[in-house]
């Protein structure tokens, strides 16, 4: 429901209450020396007024969203003096329950400065809950979440310490972009000049005077990023910031994050998309069902994934038996050729040459990050198409 229609419905409801009150008043013939025609005028004026307000405020004035402004070049961000000592996010044995549902279960990890840390997990894994606890919005059931060694609630002007973006669509539709950002900036003593700078940085200066209801999802994401960067904080917490950005915007955003990490900031970016994180993050924290699954460098995660060797040869059958004899596992590929595991490409090539077998193609294949991620999180996915989860079945059986 639009906020405008909410106001209008409320006004109508309240007008009705007023009328009821008037009628009770009339029927009880209390002290008022008011002739009936005056009451009639009061009632007649009141009821249509609610309707008029509804027509004014409740009318759908949504214009088609303007196309996204062209993303600005990823200007090298201004270096900032990083306070002495490692500013980092530290989550320690964090548990958060909502009734019987455990959203975060004994989760511990640390985020270090100077790199982009990807916070990955399937939908419902507890990423947003963890971020909300770090930001002091939700109270943890047990455990702690500290930023720079302090609880978030202890910060006097927190935007100077931590910039955050939780939900880019959580903006008031009736307010202009500029007013929205200005209210956030004022609460932390940030001036107009810096406000203009972040609008410029995110490419929103041309649309800042428009109402947020007219913003597209991509523009709202940029606005959220602008709000996170308002005070130029050393720590950034971003929940699914790339949602709704176009490919160019995603690239701009990725470069922005990496540039800011290079300045020594601590950056935690959540996502449920491995492919996006693989290109952005230097380090990965992967959770599923509220538990920590992996806390590794992206490179290590990549090299840890399964790999095999694809070899194509006109004498494939002969080569296959040779390879099997030397201890490799060989499987035929769909496109013609052999998938070899347990032996690296050099050894396969050497073996082929030593037996005079021509090789047309010889490639080492890494399993995709996506696959590794799916393997890792597969057991912990909350919602998956087609197959009921074992936990769900046991829950049903228990009932």
């Amino acid at each position, binding site marked *: 429901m639009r*906020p*405008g229609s*909410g*106001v209008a419905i*409320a*006004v109508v409801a*309240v007008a009705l*209450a*007023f009328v009821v*009150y*008037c009628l009770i008043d009339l029927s009880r013939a209390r*002290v*008022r*020396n*008011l002739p009936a*025609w*005056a009451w009639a*005028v*009061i009632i007649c*004026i*009141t009821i249509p*007024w609610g309707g008029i*307000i509804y027509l*004014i*405020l409740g009318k759908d004035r949504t214009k088609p969203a303007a196309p996204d402004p062209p993303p600005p070049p990823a200007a090298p961000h*201004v270096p*900032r*003096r990083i306070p002495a000592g490692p500013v980092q996010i530290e989550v320690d044995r964090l548990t958060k329950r909502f009734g019987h549902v455990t959203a975060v279960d004994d989760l511990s990890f640390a985020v270090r400065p100077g790199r982009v840390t990807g916070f990955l997990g399937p939908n419902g894994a507890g990423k947003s809950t963890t971020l*909300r606890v770090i930001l*002091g*919005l939700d*109270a943890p059931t047990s455990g702690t979440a500290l930023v720079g060694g302090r609880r978030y*609630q202890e*910060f*006097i*002007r*927190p*935007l*100077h*310490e931590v910039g955050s973006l*939780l*939900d880019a669509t*959580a903006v*008031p*539709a009736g*307010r*202009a972009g500029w*007013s929205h950002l200005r*209210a956030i*900036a*004022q*609460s932390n*003593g*940030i001036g107009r000049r*810096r406000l203009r*700078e972040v609008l410029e940085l995110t490419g929103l200066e041309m649309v800042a005077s428009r109402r947020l209801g007219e913003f597209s999802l991509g523009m709202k994401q940029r606005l959220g990023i602008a*709000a996170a960067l308002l*005070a*130029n*904080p050393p720590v950034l917490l971003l929940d699914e910031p790339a949602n709704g950005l176009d490919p160019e915007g995603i690239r701009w955003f990725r470069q922005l994050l990496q540039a800011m990490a290079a300045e020594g900031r601590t950056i935690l970016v959540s996502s449920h998309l491995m492919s996006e994180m693989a290109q952005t993050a230097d380090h990965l924290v992967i959770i599923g069902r509220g538990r920590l699954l992996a806390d590794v460098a992206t490179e290590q995660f990549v090299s840890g994934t399964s790999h095999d060797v694809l070899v194509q040869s006109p004498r494939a059958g002969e080569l296959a038996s040779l390879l099997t004899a030397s201890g490799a596992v060989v499987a035929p590929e769909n496109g013609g050729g052999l998938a070899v595991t347990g032996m690296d490409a050099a050894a396969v090539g050497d073996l082929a040459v030593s037996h005079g077998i021509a090789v047309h193609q010889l490639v080492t294949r890494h399993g995709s990050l996506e696959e590794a991620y799916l393997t890792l999180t597969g057991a912990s996915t909350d919602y998956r198409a087609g197959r009921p989860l074992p936990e769900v079945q046991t829950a049903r059986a228990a009932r």
Partner: protein
Amino acid sequence: MTAPQLQAAGTAGTTPSPLVRARDVLASEWTKLSSLRSNRWTLGAAAIVTLVLTAVVAASFAAAPHGGQRAAPVDRLATSFLAFAEYLVLPVTVLSVLVFTSEYGSGLIRTTFTAVPRRRTVLAAKAAVTGAAALVTGEVLAFACFFLTQAILSGRHGGLSLAHPGAARGVLAAGFVLAACALVGVGAGAVLRHTAGAIAVAVTVVYLLAVLCLVLPAPWNLRLGRFTLPFAAYAEVTAHPPTGLFSPWLSLLVLIAWPAAALLTAAVVLTRRDV
């Protein structure tokens, strides 16, 4: 462009004084309240309708065949605020409820509490800004309604001046009543979070409790009714308070107690709840 940006971010190191912090949050909440176009429209429309209704009421009194000589003399003071109390209070209360519930509805409340983690500070700032806006609106309209009514009544019954006993108190109190109702709305919105429920509760406190009390048998209607906002307000703005109501000073306490209770409940609930 490096130097200015660094300077803009340079305030991080300094810890601002509590006074500066309070001013920051107040400024932020004022920006939120004043930058919503629907707020301005609704308040403006409500003000105009209040004045029109006041004129209608005054004219009907002036034109009544027996004037004030019938059962009771016309209360020329309370007449000024009939439309004010029975009409203007409603839209103002609703707008005040929306101060919190609209933020909960859109999810903006998370941004607000992330920017200012001390939730009671946010509550205090919202209450102060909304209350002040309602007080200013209320006082301006109370004076306007008073003078408008007295101007219309002056022909037949003779209008009052502010120097009349109780007149100045009544006019000032009428504006205060509006602020009290607005603060009840802010508190209800913060506690209940949902627009519909919060409006229902706020309207109950601001209006319907008094209506319910009227239905009670004779001694009890005023005995209980004097603790409700509308009766306390009536005791403030009438020149001839009916016996059974509190004195203006005790009624002022009632007018303070309701918003205080609403805001205290909100202060307790806000800090104990996940956002």
